[in-house]
């Protein structure tokens, strides 16, 4: 098999495809503590992340997305990774994840199943697909309801 075919298989590995075909935690929260919407103007993708907080603890995360497999799977995995964490721990996880993609470093340390996305760094036009849910969650946790973009 060629490097190229290996790389493609690594990008669309089974865990990514499973999450994209049957994403977890999709839908809206009726009265979220906070929410944010993110756009990728390059492809028209859109994701809204809803967060329920109880004191310092994030008790529920949901998302609605019109997005590609990479973005949808990243969002699905994100909701599982960050759920039930304190705001501080969630923010640290978000920071670490975005830093890893932005600087293409410590990819082995990506939290939970996000490690499956290490290969996306070889696809400059697709990195934003993986990071959009995380950027959107970052905005939701740091500002009131608002809209963000990958640009």
């Amino acid at each position, binding site marked *: 098999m060629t490097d190229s075919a290996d790389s493609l298989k690594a990008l669309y590995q089974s865990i990514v495809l499973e999450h994209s075909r049957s994403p977890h935690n999709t839908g809206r929260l009726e009265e979220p503590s906070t929410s944010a919407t993110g756009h990728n103007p390059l492809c*028209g993708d859109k994701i809204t992340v809803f967060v329920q907080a109880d004191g310092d603890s994030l008790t529920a995360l949901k998302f609605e997305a019109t997005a*590609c497999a990479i973005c949808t799977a990243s969002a699905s995995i994100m909701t599982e990774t960050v759920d039930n964490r304190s705001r501080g721990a969630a923010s640290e996880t978000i920071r670490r994840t975005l830093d890893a993609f932005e600087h293409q470093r410590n990819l082995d340390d990506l939290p939970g199943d996000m490690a499956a996305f290490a290969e996306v760094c070889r696809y400059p036009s697709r990195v934003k697909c993986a990071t959009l849910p995380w950027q959107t969650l970052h905005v939701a946790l740091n500002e009131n309801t608002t809209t963000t973009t990958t640009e």
Partner: protein
Amino acid sequence: MTASSESSLSPAVDPLNGHDVRRDFPVLDQQINGNRLAFLDSAASAQRPRPVLEAIAAYEERDHANVHRGVHTLSHRATEAYESARKKVRRFVNAASEREIVFTRGTTEAINLVAATLSQSWTSGDEIIVTELEHHANIVPWQMLADQHGFRLRVLPINNRGELLVEQLPDLINDRTRLLCLAHVSNALGTINPVTECVAMARARNVRTLIDGAQAVPHMPVDVRAVDCDFYAFSGHKMYGPTGIGVLYGRESLMQSLPPWQGGGDMILTVSFSGTTFNELPYRFEAGTPNIAGAIGLGAAIDYLESIGMANVATRESALLKYATDKLTELPGLRLIGTAANKTSVLSFTVEGTHPHDLGTILDHQGVAIRTGHHCAMPVMEHFNIAGTARASLGIYNTTDDIDQLYKGLTKALEMLR
């Protein structure tokens, strides 16, 4: 390439009679991810044939100097080459005079030029008609203008095949309508709009007309006098020429009445602090040193297209579009977006259970270059209630081999993603 690429269109529908166009384009002679390159993204930007590359190199290596200024030999040569490109453009679109041919950076700049100058005689409440299938370049300048001056934008809708509801145009026109802005060919759908008919309706009601011809000029013969529009804009890089060069055709009588746009050198006759007199057409609209190499490259692209013949280009691409349409619609779950009866060179589609962005990445791995997304036509996507499409667009170098490679690539992508 082997001879098979050219013989892949049957001689009955291939008017080029064995001319292997693909070989004229050096960039196509490469492997992408270990596969033959199937370039199906010409609607975004077409590749350049060797004569265009050579014309630019020859100018840069031998003839470069500023135009319309010097008395020395190089300046003469550069001016001669630049103005000769203008003559070619005039002939290519059948304008009446070279004074009607303004070089711009591209279609977008040409439209912005019209927006900034034509509107100066309008008043708040005046109306501009655009269509639902316009590229953002023919929407946003008018929106910005409308916001700034209180003009009103009205939109001519499309049907579910992606065809304009032309019969609604007369109802959109009233005594405040100043301009109809209309694409000749939709970049997202491939629809060929009945521009001559629409222009006639507008002119009958004394409404000015601007045609965005960026996607038409590379694919069919265009005659601006037959269309009878006031303005016609297009880009070099969609028609096998360089980026950064485009054309605004403007009817001379109207262009004479427009105020200047950008100020600077070359657009003036005399300058003093008590006042400035402006140059004649078309130079009045070409402030500053122009893209000389770009214009020369565009001229060479026109020579190249004319050597093939635009009618032949249209016939060949139409046969290939039919082949591609038949082939792609064999794929289960594939939905063509844009099924106009009169259509050219664009196959926009979605595939059930997949996202265009993922298709694009997987196709690239198989050497197939397509565009994915909203194609700078978000209102079109909204009409069809989709975020984006995958778009394969054809150029003169494409053959059935490219379509077969696309089909095979899509089959593989569906195996992976579904």
